[in-house]
């Protein structure tokens, strides 16, 4: 197990290093002159030059990269061109919103995704199975941007049950905060629920076919114990590793959901920055998001190694 931990840690460090380079380099893909793109169509050559110096674009690539990385070690993510604040400040403002939304959506995903999948597997080929899997299929097939807009139209505008958008901080009014986040969380979670339900069903079916399930039945254990104790634990342990994928999808989804519901979160921050060429925010935002995911995946893999006795007590 220790070998495994060391190996995973080393990999994670290497991947974060590569992620840093990619985050920085994405903006170098811009064809033509980034400075004039940022300055805009009507800028004078002097203005463009000023921006070039401001962005440090007059320095060669590797110098800029090293400068940026050294800055990172000091906690300096750079300064936003458009927002009049440091990238770190901008992120700190937006992060709680995205975290709240993500946690809400994750809870829904885990609860409904696993339940639907397990239920479908235990009642394989029945109408329950077909229904659960149809819901799951729709979840992964319907575009969430479209669903989000439809939700707003139906539940907010037509029924008036929910606000059409905007964020309410929890410190201000916890109940209204939850209400404001409900539609976005549901819209965000639908794709993940579908995915998780399909995986949970497939995993459960596989486990139910195993010999040890037959042994459990032969011992005279009741059905709830066979499924809920013996089968379920074998399903949940590998399913833990899926958490990283789900979180990644969720963060992708926040881009769209925060836009449609006007939530001031990380997703919207990064998208706006990309649309408006705010390089420091783009670089910082991508780096933070990707690094966070690498850490989460590492944690998840280690958790899995600890949970599965075959890895934990490997000879």
């Amino acid at each position: 197990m220790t070998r495994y931990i060391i190996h995973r840690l080393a990999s994670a460090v290497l991947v974060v290093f590569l992620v840093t380079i990619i985050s920085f380099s994405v903006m170098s893909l811009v064809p033509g002159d980034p400075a004039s793109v940022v300055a805009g169509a009507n800028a004078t050559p002097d203005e463009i030059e000023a921006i070039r110096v401001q962005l440090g674009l007059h320095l060669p690539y590797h110098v800029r990269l090293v400068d940026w990385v050294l800055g990172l070690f000091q906690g300096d993510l750079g300064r936003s061109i458009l927002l009049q604040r440091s990238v770190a400040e901008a992120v700190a403002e937006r992060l709680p919103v995205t975290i709240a939304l993500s946690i809400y959506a994750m809870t829904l995903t885990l609860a409904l995704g696993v339940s639907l999948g397990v239920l479908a597997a235990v009642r394989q080929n029945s109408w329950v199975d077909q229904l659960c899997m149809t819901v799951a299929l729709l979840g992964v097939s319907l575009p969430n941007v479209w669903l989000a807009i439809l939700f707003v139209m139906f539940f907010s505008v037509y029924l008036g049950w929910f606000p059409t958008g905007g964020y309410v901080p929890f410190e201000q009014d916890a109940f209204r905060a939850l209400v404001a986040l409900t539609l976005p969380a549901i819209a965000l979670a639908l794709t993940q629920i579908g995915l998780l339900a399909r995986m949970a069903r497939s995993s459960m079916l596989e486990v139910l076919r195993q010999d040890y399930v037959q042994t459990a039945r032969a011992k005279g254990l009741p059905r709830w114990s066979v499924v809920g104790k013996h089968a379920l634990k074998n399903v949940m342990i590998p399913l833990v590793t899926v958490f990283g994928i789900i979180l990644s999808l969720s963060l992708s989804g926040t881009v769209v959901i925060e836009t449609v519901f006007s939530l001031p979160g990380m997703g919207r921050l990064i998208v706006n920055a990309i649309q408006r060429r705010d390089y420091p925010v783009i670089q910082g935002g991508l780096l933070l998001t990707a690094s966070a995911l690498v850490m989460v995946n590492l944690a998840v893999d280690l958790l899995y190694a600890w949970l599965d006795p075959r890895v934990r007590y490997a000879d």
Partner: protein
Amino acid sequence: MPIRRLLRHRLFVTGLSLFLLVVVAAIAAEWIASHNPTRMNMRLRFTAPGDPRFLLGTDAFGRDILARLAHGAQVSLRIGVMVVVFTGVFGTLFGALSGYFRRLDNPIMRVMDAFMAFPAIMLAIAIAAALGPSELNVVIALAAVYTPRTARIVRASALVVREAEFVQAARVAGAGDTRILLGHVLPNSLAPLIVQLTFIFAYSVLAEAVLSFLGVGPAPPTPTWGNMIADGRNFIREAPWITLMPGIAISITVLGLNLLGDGLRDVLDPRMKVTSS
């Protein structure tokens, strides 16, 4: 040949029908939609669907929704096919090399991991925005995002093949690496690869819609399903069909592809777990 079994599989057939429906609509765009998708007619704006002249209605500029839908289908399908081709080629290349040659495994896979560490849409938006609004750039962006997933699948097959006894036998008999790669690794990766590429086509359609919605896809006036949804958003109360129609189109396409993928997986490789990345 598994083709007969495929045709008997209900999910596969349903999926194929839905998908072909969209393909036909795209190919026949000029014929089924008599109107020019970019022609504006302010007097006829916001016509509701069911009108004999405009079967699916018109949008805020009086443009025919059906025509725009059909042309949007062309864009989405073109992008989907190109992403699948790019991802297939590069994914197989990296995956096979990584799985087969031990010394290449770590470097290649760490790079793949690094790309996969970014939430897919975020990375796609960043790359597409940097490169500029065009179909090709969307393809490049999505290929960069999805190639690692394909590489993983091919690598898994390559690993298995590398250790297989018949490969050791072949090597003892003098077969070179190229022979083994082409003759054994590739054929064995084919089944899971096909399934994965089908799902990647589905993700591409969804991703392209998001990119277009955010204004980072092919530039207007090209109609894409994504920018149609964005256009209709402001008029959701007066003319909901502007947003509704493209969403239905995307749903049908992606549903069809997902069913196709499920069916293929059941027939070609029933032991494959349901993975989405």
